[in-house]
């Protein structure tokens, strides 16, 4: 067998250029694909299609009708809870719900907020309202915890303006 003899050099000269090319390409690839994913969360809503299944629950929850109207642009115009107007925005709505339900989590099942909106109302305000009704964040030992108020939310038929 013939063994090929290599030239013996004192120092092996590495070819850096191709490696750097590839490394930079990798770097550029990962920078390009890097995207900050926003954390998303859900509001859980149970809405059975047939109302007949509701008769199974022993106690009907107290209904708190929330009416939201929109102006021509779809922004929130007025808000009424049980017929009385709310002027202080979602903070007042939250306080009102808090006053009704109380912070004790035991009673949360006994209330149900029925949201009725104008057809054109922007969805954002509905989420704001649900946020105000659902509860709030409280700092407990430096960590945010959700204090829940009303878990049950239902939607009433939207009101269409101008026929």
């Amino acid at each position, binding site marked *: 067998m013939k063994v090929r003899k290599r030239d013996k050099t004192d120092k092996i000269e590495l070819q850096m250029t191709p490696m750097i090319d590839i490394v930079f390409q*990798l770097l550029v690839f990962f920078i390009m694909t890097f995207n900050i*994913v926003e954390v*998303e969360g*859900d*509001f859980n809503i149970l809405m059975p299609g047939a109302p007949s299944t509701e008769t199974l629950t022993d106690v009907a929850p107290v209904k708190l009708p929330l009416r939201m109207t929109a102006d021509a642009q779809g922004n929130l115009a007025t808000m009424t809870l049980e017929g009385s107007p709310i002027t202080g925005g979602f903070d007042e709505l939250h306080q009102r719900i808090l006053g009704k339900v109380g912070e004790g989590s035991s009673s949360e099942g006994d209330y149900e907020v029925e949201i009725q909106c104008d057809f054109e*109302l922007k969805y954002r305000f509905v989420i704001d309202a649900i946020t105000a009704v659902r509860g709030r964040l409280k700092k407990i030992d430096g960590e945010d915890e959700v204090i829940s108020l009303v878990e049950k939310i239902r939607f009433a038929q939207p009101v269409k303006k101008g026929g």
Partner: protein
Amino acid sequence: MRLQKQKKEDAEGDMTPMIDIVFQLIAFFMVLVNFTKVDADDRVKLPSSALAKPPEQKLKFPVTLQMTADGMVILGGDLMDVESPDLDNRLIRERRAAGEKVGPGGIDEVPVIIRAHELAPTGKVQKLITLCQSKGFQRFRLRAKEETKGG
């Protein structure tokens, strides 16, 4: 002033620190990049809410419906009107497919994730929900972006 002459045939910089840093950068971006399939769509900008928390356990075979600002529904990459019969058929099909996946008992638990644009008219969102209800879906998840306070 004395000038030191540094004339070499081949200017050889020391590559090692640069390569160190570049590899670190690559490692950094590799760790941060996540290839998890996000069903986010550029056309949908979610409303934000302080209470929106990511679900604790993974949802079982959810059906994701998205709604753009003008009230069009996106299902599986296709843009449809809320009232189009196309969407109707697609939902029936989704329902059947979900039913096959979860088995007979769990069909009522199949969640519908609604990702509506923050400016979408509420009436359209409700129409979409009503449509899903008529197909037998019961569990809805209104998706919102987590709001970071003071930051």
